[in-house]
């Protein structure tokens, strides 16, 4: 990892904390220029990722760690943040990243929608095994470019090549 996250939080794998994670992600996304609906969708993607960790990774155990890290994404020539990068890590059992696919939506039944929602909402979603144990999910959503979109202060700049550090 080449750069520290701008925000990094650890939460226990308890569904009661999902609302706090959503609020955090949504408010940071808003500060980076996303509108209310996009903020809600980004928070939804993170929520679905956390639910998958809790449900499948930790088999609903409520006392296991999950880490969420956030960075702004630099894109334009002026170095203005142009999106959000979110990394979610856990210590759950490792799975083949190529098998992290959503089910067919034509088959209407309860469950199995999380990965589809994540990939639908975010511009990039990449699963990988962490070194040692656990999984890492990297999510990127690029911001729309209205001229009057709010921007974060220059001091909050980041580099696109940065990757999350190991704990």
């Amino acid at each position: 990892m080449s750069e520290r996250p701008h925000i990094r939080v650890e939460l226990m794998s308890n569904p009661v904390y999902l609302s706090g994670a959503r609020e955090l992600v949504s408010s940071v996304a808003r500060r980076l220029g996303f509108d209310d609906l996009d903020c809600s969708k980004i928070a939804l993607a993170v929520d679905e990722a956390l639910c998958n960790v809790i449900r499948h990774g930790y088999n609903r155990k409520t006392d296991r760690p999950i880490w969420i890290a956030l960075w702004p994404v630099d894109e334009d020539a002026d170095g203005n943040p142009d999106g959000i990068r979110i990394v979610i890590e856990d210590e759950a059992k490792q799975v083949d990243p190529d098998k992290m696919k959503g089910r067919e939506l034509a088959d209407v039944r309860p469950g199995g929608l999380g990965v589809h929602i994540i990939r639908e909402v975010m511009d990039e979603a990449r699963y990988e095994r962490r070194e040692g144990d656990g999984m890492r999910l990297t999510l990127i959503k690029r911001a729309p470019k209205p001229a009057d979109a709010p921007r974060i202060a220059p001091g909050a700049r980041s580099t696109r090549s940065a990757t999350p550090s190991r704990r």
Partner: protein
Amino acid sequence: MHDSDAMPINSETRDGAVILSPVGDVDMAHSPSLRSALRSAQEGKPPRLVVNLTDVRYMDSSGLATLVESMRSAKNARTSMVLCGMNPKVKAIFEIARLDQFFTVVDDLDQALTV
């Protein structure tokens, strides 16, 4: 610390229709409350079951799964299940999951009782 907590869900019967109105976020922590309320409401096999989402500010796929499960039960029981009052953020997840056509969705409670 429990992994879920009770979600306020108002229930009333109007002209034979059961109306459930959950309040708050329907997420992994709260969807068990909604599932329980829906199952209780469907035990009486009402002709119409309305889920009024006016006071739901957020829903994730666990909420969707709960509603899909309930819709299947409703079809088997020949109950007309209608959703109403979705805000744009809640509506978005139905569209992302392409379930907006699976349910009968109307704007408000008055329409839900007459559609």
